[in-house]
């Protein structure tokens, strides 16, 4: 399993490196069209070939990495930033009407898959990368709220929490001081999972035209463009697709490795 962690770390670092590098350098300018060189198979100049406008696919992939990572990162941030406090709050007031409302609200959001949220937003506000962020972010909230509530509830039953209450500490303080640090590992692991799911979701939204709009580069839209060309220039579909697979695979392996390493099942002691 350790090998998986390192492979995951290397793959994730590679994609992150490409995205960061794209800020200072890409092999070609992705805004420059070069129709004479369109749909070239991978060759010495264009390592990964060119698309139907003659743009360099490696450069497009690098620019797309930026979009994918940014959308997924912000979406996970929204999910964690709102979901974890809600989950902790629900757990701290377990059984109260507040807990009930938070949990019912969660169930409700689960009835709106992120794609449906994106459809609603797009229908009213038009398509953009921000849509994708909001749609994926909203769907992430109940994921983190549920998970943190469940983990926090099992902690609230532990004696050390009772001891803190006997020491006169309030619910908010206990949540911040005792609960949060003990569920942090679990949240980090779930964060990597949601991050990779976010990348998949962003690709799907962009593919159907509900995500990033031109000229922002995006893996999903590269695939949408490639769809009609797949039989004459398979590399236009294979390269962005494999990039997504590698990125998600890398993040998942990293997440699994982290889980084994951080041991999120709260079996923290009792060794």
């Amino acid at each position, binding site marked *: 399993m350790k090998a998986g962690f390192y492979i995951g770390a290397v793959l994730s670092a590679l994609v992150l490196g490409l995205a960061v590098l794209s800020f200072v350098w890409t092999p070609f300018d992705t805004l420059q069209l070069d129709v004479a060189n369109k749909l070239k198979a991978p060759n010495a100049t264009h390592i990964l070939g060119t698309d139907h406008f003659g743009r360099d696919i490696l450069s497009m992939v690098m620019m797309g990495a930026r979009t994918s990572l940014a959308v997924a990162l912000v979406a996970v941030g929204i999910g964690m930033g709102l979901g974890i406090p809600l989950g902790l709050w629900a757990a701290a007031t377990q059984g109260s009407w507040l807990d009930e409302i938070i949990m019912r609200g969660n169930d*409700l959001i689960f009835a709106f898959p992120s794609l449906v949220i994106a459809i609603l937003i797009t229908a009213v506000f038009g398509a953009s990368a921000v849509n994708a962020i909001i749609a994926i972010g909203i769907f992430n909230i109940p994921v983190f709220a549920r998970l943190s509530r469940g983990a926090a509830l099992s902690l609230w039953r532990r004696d050390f929490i009772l001891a803190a209450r006997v020491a006169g500490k309030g619910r908010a303080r206990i949540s911040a001081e005792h609960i949060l640090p003990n569920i942090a590992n679990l949240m980090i692991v779930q964060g990597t999972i949601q991050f990779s799911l976010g990348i998949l979701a962003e690709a799907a939204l962009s*593919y*159907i035209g509900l995500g990033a709009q031109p000229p922002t580069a995006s893996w999903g839209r590269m695939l949408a463009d490639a769809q009609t060309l797949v039989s004459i220039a398979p590399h236009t579909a294979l390269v962005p697709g494999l990039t997504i697979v590698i990125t998600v695979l890398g993040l998942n392996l990293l997440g699994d490795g982290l889980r084994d390493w951080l041991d999120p099942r709260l079996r923290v002691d009792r060794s």
Partner: protein
Amino acid sequence: MIAFALRRFGSLIVSLIVASFVIFAVIEVIPGDPASFMLGVNARPDTLAALQAELGLDQPLPVRYLSWVGGMVTGDFGTSYTYKTPVAGMVADRIWVSLPLALYALILSTVIAFPAGIYAASRRGGVGDTAVMGATQLGVAIPNFWFAMILVLIFAIKLRWFSAGGFVGWDKGVFAGLWSLTLPAIALALPQAAILARVMRSSLLDMLGEDFMRTARAKGLTRRRALWKHAVRNALIPVLTILGLQFSFLLAGGIVIEQVFFLPGLGRLIFQSISARDLIVVESVVMLLVFLVIVVNFIVDLTYAWVDPRLRRRA
């Protein structure tokens, strides 16, 4: 059991009402005037007034909400502005593509994932387990629409076993209909099957560590028999949750896959409506999708009670 079902049914109704509020608010309240939104900035005043009257925008919000909900309940989904036809009819044609596709994929996913997960758990740490887990790791990472494109490239374009897109219609026979949904269903099902197999495996492994499994072994059951007779049913409890969630992913994922295969389903209807700014269609179809998801989760809840006797008496 009946009391449990009734209580669940109550929360189903509440969820539907709240969901309808949300959808109504997003579509009809946030844009301000839906009619001018639908017609765009260059609309002629008389056209605008006609549409406003048609949509009943001169009515107060509660009345509009109630007439929309009342219409949905009685099967009147409103009239599409673009096509001038009742939305109910358009939906009726398309739901017979989208729903069978989602169910087909759900069945495929379950049929693949359960044996794979059980096999991997029973061979824990062995070659078979490693192989299955490696495959699922890959399956989880593959975007279904890209997988669909690859399937088309191989099985439709190169091998010509399937057509590259479109739906023959159920009037050509059930088999022909299913055949044309097979590639889309596989594309939808395999990534979901990978997730389901992983959950099944880890849930089973959790069960293998339980005391009652040791009791079963002490009774003289072989490892395999203890797994099948005692672990599997217990392991199903968390798996069911995932299965319920998967249905909504498959339904939503179907919208994307319909694009790849040019299937005349709800997804295509939604996209055509979005580009035509036909809010009436979007509103009703989204409500329908959410309704389906909530109903499926209700069924999953009932199945829970069937699997887990501890739930039959308590909420």
